[in-house]
């Protein structure tokens, strides 16, 4: 396994829409393992392939406090979403910035597992938020896009100033 490089805002590659995975093979499994390692190391609770510059629909998530419930979602689909909930989010591609985002509070999700088998689950709480956040990435979207125009501009100024300083 190896750790991957995480693209940082405002990198335009974060805006790429990812392609569905055609076959779940060893290459995809290796990608998922590398992504898990990268996510745990960061540390984060979710990572989309887009963020490591692979534009295929693969997501890894672990929202447990013990960090022992890794989930791999391939071609995830949100079949149903209900309710609304606001909570603070951060993103491994937008380091140092957090803001409150409104999301659905309950989801019904379908995905393929690492063996290519289809499965479904319900999610609420942090897991539901994280699934939406990662599926957004696969569609080239960031949590910043959910903020008001004003807040988004302010965040952009703050973040680009930061990246100029560290560049």
């Amino acid at each position, binding site marked *: 396994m190896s750790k991957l490089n995480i693209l940082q805002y405002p990198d335009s590659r974060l805006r790429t829409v990812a392609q569905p995975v055609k076959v779940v093979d060893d290459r995809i499994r290796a990608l998922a393992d590398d992504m898990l390692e990268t996510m745990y190391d960061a540390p984060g609770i979710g990572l989309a392939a887009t963020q490591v510059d692979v534009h295929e629909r693969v997501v890894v998530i672990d929202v447990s406090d013990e960090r022992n419930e890794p989930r791999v979602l391939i071609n995830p689909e949100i079949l149903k979403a209900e309710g609304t909930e606001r909570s*603070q989010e951060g993103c491994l591609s937008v380091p140092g910035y957090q803001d409150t985002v409104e999301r659905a509070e309950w989801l019904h999700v379908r995905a393929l597992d690492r063996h290519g088998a289809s499965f479904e689950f319900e999610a609420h709480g942090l897991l539901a938020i994280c699934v939406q956040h990662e599926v957004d990435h696969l569609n080239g979207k960031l949590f910043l896009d959910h903020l008001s125009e004003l807040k988004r501009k302010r965040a952009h100024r703050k973040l680009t100033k930061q990246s100029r300083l560290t560049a």
Partner: protein
Amino acid sequence: MARGRRQVQAISARLAAAEALARVATGRSLTAALPAVLGQVAPGERALAQELAYGALRWYPRLCWVLDQLLERPLRRRDRDVHAVLIVGLYQCLDTRIPEHAAVSETVAAARALGRRRASGLVNAVLRRCLRERTSLQAGWQALPSARYAHPDWLLARFREAWPANWEALIEANNARPPMTLRVNRRQRAREAYLGELQCIGVGANAHPLAPDAIVLDEPVGVERLPGFAGGAVSVQDAAAQQAAVLLAPEPGERVLDLCAAPGGKSSHVLECQPALAELVAVDLESVRLERLHENLRRLGLSARVIQGDAAEPGHWWDGVAYDRILLDAPCSASGVIRRHPDIKLLRQAADLDGLQALQKRLLAAAWPLLAPGGMLLYVTCSVLPMENEQVVRPFAAEREDVVVRMIDAAWGQATDHGRQILSGESGMDGFYYACLVKQ
């Protein structure tokens, strides 16, 4: 995604208990769910959070029935978190001495912290109505067995069928708070001496009359308060589980195999009782649980050969040398330890039993060839269901010519056709089954 700052704030005891309950409701065990949740609670509130989580699960089938009576329309599936807060609230109102106003206001605050619109109003209304209508609710649940006995119907039916004369006592024990029982490490202390040490620090305790190393505490205490705990003077283990080492009773120089050994409660007791074994080999499938076994052995100053492997597939790990004694502590429904793990009432399904029995039979058949002629295998479960006990041992003993059942002669439990059963609560013990099988 990175965790938001607000997602790591401390949470109240009520909210933590509800969170633990919600996790159990989605299929996790309480032992797995609780530590992480308690970690988010201020230290002074942890004991309360734990008591609320255990208590709410202990009465869960009844509390769900009460909630159904009090809700105008059922909650949606995605309101599982609100449901859990309500159950924790009802538990406080019906089964604790927490003052009514505190039970209501603190639970309403927990609902507010969920950040769900209308949840706090609903919780307030439901709890107040519960307090007003307590008497008629009580009459209602008396009439409905699952609510009255706070057990799922299928489990009640099994208990009734298996133990027609004792099932009510068994249920009562399942719903009671279990005692905290210790096992004194014979290699370090005499039981009498340790009782003296406990007395010195004001912990009331008595020797268990039916288990030579067991001490029962008047009230549970944190292990950090127990004299010499870190140095291995004592372990926490029910008196029923302590019968395993007594029955196995290996001789000096013998080789012992402990199958399904993690977290090592029985392995370590065997080692404490017989310091002169040639070897003790401990096998378990789950590496996470084996870490706890290592930890326990280290604390007690004991050593064993530990193997991570499938007990049903000895071909992968067995060195081919037969064992003199085998302890098979088979995975089971845990129907004998419901008082310690009330989440079993939610998690266990009738449909699980067939699979468990098949696994138990497979493990027994796989273990037998590893036993030396003249050797003894001790089959153990913490279940009170004959399906996992007699009905596993009986066909096995009948099919094989080289199996001799040795009847267990003991002052505890009751004889069954092939072994001995302790029913939950009997002499303060957990429900356990033992059978001794000798190889000809």
